[in-house]
Structure formats: C-alpha cells, structure tokens
C-alpha cells in the first residue's frame, strides 16, 4: 500500500519533471517570467486526448501535442519581442487565449481516456511488466530529455540562449539576435510543458481544461527545491536538480495529503512555499539589520556608561 503510493508519487514527480524543466528554462536560463505554461500544459493534454479519442497513434498524438506547445511558446515570444509587450503580460495573453483554444480542441471541458489506446497501453501490449511500466517509461524519458536539454545548452545556439538571459547587451554586441533566441527558448520550454501535459493526461486517464491552474507555481517550487538540494549553477547538475526537486515536491504533497490536508488547500501550501523560498534573502536581511541595530544600541549604551 505505502509502496504503491510512493511509486505513484515518484511517477508523478517524473512527469512533472518535464514541466519543471519547461519552467526552469525561461525563468532561470532566459530570465523571462513565462506564464504561458498555465495554458500550454492543458494544451498538451487537450491535443493528445482529442487526437487519441479520434484514433490517432498515441505516439504521434503526443508528438503533435509537444509541437502545439512549441507554437504556443513561440507566440508568447513573438508578442513580447516583435510587439514589445512585457514578457509577463505576453504570457498571460497567450495563456488566456489558450483556455478558449483548449476548449475548442477538446469540444468539452473533460475527455476521459480510460479505455483508449495511450502510450502506456501500447507499451504494455509490447510486453513490458505492468507494475513498473509507467515508472520505467517516465524515468527513461525524463532523463533522455534532460540529456538532450543539457547538450543543447552547451551548443553554440544554447550558449547564446544562456547569454541572452545573463547579459543581453553582450550577446547582441557579438551578433546574437536576442529576439529570435527568446522565441526559440520559449518555444522549446513550452514544448516540454505540453509534453508533460500530454503524458499527465494519458497517465491519469483524462484531460481537463482546468488542469493548468497553478502549474507555474508547481514548476517554480520544483525548480527552487532542486536548487536547495543541488547547489550549483552548472547546467548538468541544475537540470538534474530540477527533476529531483519535482519528485521531492510530489513527495511533500503526498505527505501533506496523508496528514489530512484537503487537496484543494495544496495550491496555497505550494504558493507559500515559493514565497518563503524566494523571499528568504530579504527576510534574512531584515533579521541581520535588526540584529545589527541591537548591537549598535548596546554599544552606545555601554559607551554612555563609560563616559
């Protein structure tokens, strides 16, 4: 019983690891607060679910779902770079549009996939042992994506992408077109997010138009947990940390549920976690200032005494 809960949690963590990498890329590498994620995650689910119930090969459906995420991310990038609309707003605009688009694609708010042919059922048909199927598939896939992402970030284009987030003035002066690089990066990131959405819906057995809510915060929480566990800015460790962070996040949520938290309260728990983690440096500074003020007071008091 416990073991199967644990296994299920890790499986979820792995699938969401893809989402977390799709959040890590814009937030940490490109320095772009991309909210498209909230729309591209259900987009991936919607596209794959709609194609699967229409009899499309689930691998093809998942690939097309990923592609749809790439397009969504690129649209955010184009709105931001070509129309000069702030990045945050550009993401919100795409995300909001995607809500309508996702409903159009699905035709209704929810598509169950229980008796449909998904990636997992196909692989089961090939004779994989059922018990560890999802765990094996997701582990392999997530680490394959991680390795590809690592490799990409060390290529010439990938390095230009990292420089775009780090020092845009510098990379432009060296001939990098930061607009195109941003569009590429956002496309890539949302492709990963949509892939995560497509796998999630096939894993849990349904696609729902509301399944994107809070995804950005979940992704951020995973990234931050990963950074706490693996403290390095080196890409290969950082992407590993993101996956580990995602699994730890899921474990924490599972524990919270076992402790009796209502599932509906989990979003605020997650949000508070992110606020605490991101706000920690400022909180620490206040504490240091207080401590220092106290010390100054003490010193002036003792000075007054000696005088």
């Amino acid at each position, binding site marked *: 019983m416990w073991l199967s809960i644990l296994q299920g949690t890790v499986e979820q963590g792995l699938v969401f690891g893809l989402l977390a990498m799709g959040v890590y890329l814009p937030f940490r590498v490109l320095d772009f607060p991309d909210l498209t994620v909230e729309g591209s995650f259900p987009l991936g689910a919607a596209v794959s679910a709609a194609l699967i119930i229409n009899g499309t090969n689930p691998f093809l459906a998942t690939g097309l779902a990923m592609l749809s995420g790439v397009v969504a991310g690129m649209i955010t990038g184009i709105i931001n770079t070509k129309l000069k609309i702030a990045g945050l707003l550009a993401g919100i605009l795409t995300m909001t549009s995607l809500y309508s688009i996702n409903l159009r694609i699905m035709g209704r708010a929810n598509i169950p996939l229980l008796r449909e042919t998904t990636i997992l059922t196909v692989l089961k048909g090939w004779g994989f042992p059922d018990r560890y199927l999802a765990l094996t598939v997701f582990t392999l896939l997530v680490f394959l994506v991680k390795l590809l992402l690592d*490799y990409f970030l060390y*290529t010439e*284009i990938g*390095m230009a992408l990292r420089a775009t987030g*780090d*020092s845009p003035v*510098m990379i432009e*002066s*060296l001939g990098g077109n930061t607009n195109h690089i941003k569009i590429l990066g956002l496309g890539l990131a949302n492709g990963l997010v949509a892939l995560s959405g497509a796998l999630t819906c096939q894993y849990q057995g349904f696609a729902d138009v509301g399944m994107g809510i809070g995804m950005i915060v979940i992704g951020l929480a995973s990234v931050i947990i990963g950074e706490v566990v693996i403290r390095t800015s080196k890409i290969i460790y950082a992407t590993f940390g993101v996956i580990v962070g995602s699994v730890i996040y899921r474990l924490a949520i599972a524990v919270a549920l076992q402790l009796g938290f209502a599932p509906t309260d989990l979003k605020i728990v997650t949000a508070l976690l992110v606020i605490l983690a991101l706000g920690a440096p400022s909180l620490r500074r206040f504490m240091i200032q207080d401590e220092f003020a106290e010390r100054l007071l003490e010193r002036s008091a003792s000075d007054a005494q000696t005088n």
Partner: protein
Amino acid sequence: MLRLTNLHKIFNYGKVNENYALKDINLEVPKGDFITIIGSNGAGKSTLLNLIAGTLFPEAGTVEINSEDVTHRPVYKRAHLVGRVFQDPLQGTAAEMTIEENLSLAVKRGQRRGLRLGLDKNRRAEFRRLLALLELGLENRLDCPVKLLSGGQRQALTLLMATMGRPQILLLDEYTAALDPKTAIQIVEITKRIVTQHKPTVLMVTHDLKQALAMGNRTIMMDRGRIILDLKGKERENITVGDLLAKFTARSGRELTDDRILLHG
C-alpha cells in the same frame, strides 16, 4: 574605414524634453586610425559611439563602414564589423557563464550559430593561448564563472572578446572609468598590445585628457553635439593638456566642464 555623414540625433523629438544630442556630425576615419574623443558633459560622445554600434539610430545622416551603409542595422547585424567594450565591466561578459564559454560566444561573432558544441579541444587550446597574452593568469581558470573575476579582469576579458572575430572597428566607451588607477593602467597596456596586433580602427571616449593625448594618433573634441576640434598629425604631436583646455575654451566660448574630467599633468 568608417564614414559618418551629416549625422543628426535628437532624443524625444517634438516633446518638451527634446534634446538635440548630435548636430551634423561629419567624420572620416581611415582604417587603422586610433581616435580619442573628449568633451564636456552631454557633448554627445557616448551617443556618437552608440550610433556606430547600432544601439541608437540617427534622425538623419548615414553611418558607413567599409562603404557599406549600416545606418539602420541593429547591433547584432553589424557585430561582425564592430567590437565594443562598455564602461560597466558587468555588461561585456555573461556572469554566470565560465571564461571559456564567454570566449566561445565571441568566437562566433557575427556568424551563424549552430548545434555544434560551443567548446572543444581546439577552441580551448586557442583560448588558453589568447588569455595568456593578457598576462593575468586567466589561462589557468578557463572553467571559472566570470562572476568570480574582478572588474579589471572582466574588462580585460571583454577587451579580448571585443577583438575576437577581428571586427574592423573597436569602440571603447570610458572603459577604464570604473576601475582603480592601477588596474586602469594595466588595461591600457593590454589595449596597446591588442591594438598593435590586430590594428583595428579604434574610437575611444575618455575623461582623462592626458590619456587622450598619450593614446592613439588623433583626438577629437566635442561640445554640445558638435565636433569642435580634430587634432592629428604634427598639430597633435607636442600639445599639452593645458593647450587642449585653452583650445576648448577658444572654440566653445566656455570652460571645459565635466564632473569626472581628469586634468592631472
């Protein structure tokens, strides 16, 4: 060869805070010239450099490099022609990336970037050789993140990167102003070495009048958006900082004022 023809730059055109930053600038710079640019606050020195680099575009006039009209090309489309070192040492390098990664970005100056790995054995060996020329010991710290370097080391690295890929024009915008005097001298020495090696056309803005005369082969003085003096050849040879100040007053009708100007010597 760089040619600026009838350049005008107006900030906030038609608004109450309109600022006529450059007025009818004409300048011809033969290949290999090293020009130092001096002038009072708001004279338009940095604006001039920005027009050449492509961070700003003029309201009228043309910028030509090698007889190619680049007036309206954005920065990244003239990067193969123009290298630049910024006043802020933080701007010219990517802090989170390592020394070798920064250099690998500069190797591809103005070229198409592909899905090839940015670093390999050959490139590392080349970077080690180039870094050794700086004589700062950076050749042994290839995988060190640039954020751990001092301002001077970062500026030296930027200088190296600005000349990689052999751009014809090198822009130095008060690039030693943020450094302590000793480091500034070191950077100037490195500049001299690099310039003798690559022989690019250099435009250097400086507040140090002595440096303006000591470096390069030509000095131009700007005031309120105009070039008021163009010193070169014999006329420049035996001039002193005092003469320079006198010339400024004679041409502009006022004292050279700048809160950062260095007059020493």
